[in-house]
């Protein structure tokens, strides 16, 4: 839809758009991507959740995106046909390819890979040329330093070099913190951009940082003749979603009371013309933030990986989010007059690597950064028969492959793989590279743990995870998808009460026995802390376990049939107000 908007081919009414016939969006060219209905002098460029994907990739959006009934079909919980309908996407268009899973493989063959920093840079250069260097500000909502082998092996440094190349000026964080406190500070020093956060505060009473802000809470930048106050909001649930050891002594949280104080301070004391919150709260949580905090002009959101072709407006705050994996740059032009935002224009620009040419300098940089690891990362481990993808609320093929690998090696009855929203996509019949395995599980705490849990505990853990994903109140959601299970199936009533959603749990086809002890493997979470009899001799990084399994299999053939039965929804992408499509 965003392309059509810029071409003036669309009439917008009530938040939904109708495409007007006249031009086949499948024939979109570079000019269409560059085209923009410019407003005012100031331009903000926005990127979120790159997850260290400095090379172009395939990335299929979710085919199932279920939430509590009050949220279903609203921005942040739209996928497939429901998404296309809401935003008025033409079937088989470039936007449909980027924004939804519909006809993914056919369109992948037609349009090619997505993202890549060298392609992104060409677009950024063009916008800087159009608007003037002194009028453009490039902001990054975080989850940038982690997600690929090259990031992991350089402790994030490769990605900081890329951010400097791209010209990122301000950022916040989440997975950044999984490099540990000291490394975060080192990388922040290496980076040209400012790392800001109003919601990271020392909580170790014996440290100098006790009750002090760890980062500057905001920055004031002057561009396009205006003063812009940018407040940083890092991921509020970092210390529960990721291991505490990385951020011991730092406390996170939403901290909406201090956020309001900084908004007021910027407005009243610093007389800024425009207030931006650069956020990693998640799209759904930020809609709630906009309801509770007054005076924010724009929230540039991140975390939940939603491509949102149109901004949403809540309580006079305009919220946008720019997808993930380097697939998009959000361009926001702002017209400021007499110290106030008068008008704005937004476009979510797909980084179509076959349309936007690569900047040669960027290609050179990416090659240099990969060179030391090429031998390992380019190794072909095997082939896949079907599509391997990550995103879905309950089940995905690449996660199933990882669970298969873990159960095969660990001989456990049940395997848990985390419902992160980052990863990769490998097309049917394609080679699986070691690089792809790191794209799925390249984390700083990669160990697979095998331990024992009784049936009752397994059921209650599953309920606990379900409540983090499906809570009707966005403030209690952590923004991930359900953990993926190997060896186990279950039924779920998403709209059920906390602790009462899950039923009919089967392990190896037999009903889960509350008193029985099961052998369980898990990685990327905290489940091992709830278990007993940890088998220390079996502990190994998940990327090694997965690599060895694919090499043994040579060709993998993973079923796309979900192991979770949804009781209260008829389909994966329900529309607003319904339990069906």
């Amino acid at each position, binding site marked *: 839809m965003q392309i059509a908007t810029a071409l003036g081919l669309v009439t917008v009414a009530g938040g939904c758009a109708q495409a007007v016939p006249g031009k086949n969006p499948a024939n979109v060219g570079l000019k269409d991507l560059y085209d923009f209905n410019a407003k005012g002098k100031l331009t903000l460029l926005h990127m979120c959740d790159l997850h260290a994907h400095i090379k172009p990739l395939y990335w299929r959006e979710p085919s199932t995106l279920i939430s509590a009934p009050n949220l279903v079909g609203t921005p942040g919980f739209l996928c497939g046909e429901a998404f296309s309908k809401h935003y008025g996407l033409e079937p088989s268009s470039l936007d449909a390819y980027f924004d939804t899973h519909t006809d993914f493989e056919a369109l992948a063959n037609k349009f090619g890979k997505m993202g890549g920093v060298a392609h992104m840079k060409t677009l950024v250069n063009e916008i800087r040329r159009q608007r003037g260097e002194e009028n453009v500000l490039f902001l990054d909502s975080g989850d940038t330093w982690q997600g690929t082998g090259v990031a992991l092996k350089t402790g994030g440094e490769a990605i900081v070099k890329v951010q400097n190349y791209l010209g990122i000026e301000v950022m916040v964080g989440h*997975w950044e913190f999984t490099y540990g406190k000291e490394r975060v500070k080192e990388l922040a020093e290496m980076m040209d951009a400012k790392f800001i956060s109003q919601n990271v505060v020392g*909580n170790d009473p014996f440290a100098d940082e006790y*009750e*002090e*802000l760890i980062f*500057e*809470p*905001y920055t004031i930048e002057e561009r396009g003749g205006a003063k812009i106050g940018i407040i940083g909001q890092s991921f*509020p*649930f970092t*210390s*529960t*979603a*990721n291991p*505490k050891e990385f951020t011991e002594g730092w*406390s*996170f*949280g*939403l901290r909406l*009371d*201090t956020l309001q*104080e900084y908004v007021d*301070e910027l407005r009243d004391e610093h007389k800024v013309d425009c207030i931006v919150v650069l956020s990693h709260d998640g799209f759904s949580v930020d809609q709630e933030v906009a309801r509770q905090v007054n005076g924010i002009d724009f929230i540039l959101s991140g975390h939940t990986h939603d491509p949102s072709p149109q901004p949403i407006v809540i309580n006079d705050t305009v919220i946008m989010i720019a997808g993930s994996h380097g697939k998009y740059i959000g361009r926001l032009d702002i017209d400021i007059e007499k110290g106030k935002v008068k008008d704005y224009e937004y476009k979510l620009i797909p980084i179509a690597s076959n349309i936007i040419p690569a900047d040669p300098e960027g290609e050179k940089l990416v090659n240099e950064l990969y060179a030391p690891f090429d031998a390992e990362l380019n190794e072909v481990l095997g082939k896949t028969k079907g599509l391997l993808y990550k995103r879905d609320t309950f089940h995905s093929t690449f996660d199933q492959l990882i669970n298969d690998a873990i159960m095969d090696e660990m001989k456990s009855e049940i395997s848990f793989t*985390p*419902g*992160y*929203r*980052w990863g990769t996509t490998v097309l049917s019949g394609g080679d699986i590279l070691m690089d792809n395995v790191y794209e799925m599980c390249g984390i700083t705490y990669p160990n697979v743990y095998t331990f024992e849990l009784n049936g009752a505990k397994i059921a209650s*853990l599953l309920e*606990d*995870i379900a*409540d*983090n*994903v499906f809570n009707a109140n966005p*403030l*209690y959601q*952590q*923004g*991930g*998808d359900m*953990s993926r299970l190997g060896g186990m199936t279950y039924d779920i009533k998403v709209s059920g009460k*906390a602790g009462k959603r899950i039923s009919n749990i089967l392990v190896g086809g037999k009903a889960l026995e509350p008193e029985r002890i099961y052998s369980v493997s898990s990685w*990327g*979470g*905290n*489940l091992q*802390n*709830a278990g007993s009899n940890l088998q220390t001799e079996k502990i190994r990084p998940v990327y090694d376990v997965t690599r060895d399994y694919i090499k043994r299999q040579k060709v993998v053939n993973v079923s796309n049939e979900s192991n979770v039965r949804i009781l209260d929804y008829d389909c994966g992408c329900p529309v607003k107000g319904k339990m069906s499509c």
Partner: protein
Amino acid sequence: MQRRSFIKGFGVVLAASAVVPVTMMAEEAKKAPVQSPNKMNIDSAIKAITGGKALVPSSKIEFKAPEIAENGAVVPVKITVESPMTKDDYVKAIHILAKKNGNVRCTDIFLTPANGTAHFATRIKLGETQDILVIAQMSDGTFLSATQNVKVTIGGCG
């Protein structure tokens, strides 16, 4: 920048409040488990505080706790009760109760007008997701209350 300003005043007030925290719990812990008030269910614990008088939910209590606990073992809570704190009108006590803890009574804080303000912050331990109840015992014999749900989760989503 204003790194210190956001907790400005907070530490001062805390120091000025002659609080009597948790000593009562320590005493109770020594007693036989069956008779211990620690083992009371939430209704009897409330009754032990109010003597059966009704709780009046009140916006005069400003109660801050995280929506999701970063660590269930140390959940920070802050309570401020609006009161002139004069001889005739003051907050006599603030009670914090965790409805699903083994020991529902977390903290009892006793105040006098000399405290100047009724403000208290501490950390409580929560065994699971539950409602936290704050009761303010006023000098006129009424009992005000405020409640908030705090989620305790093993987490793991990314």
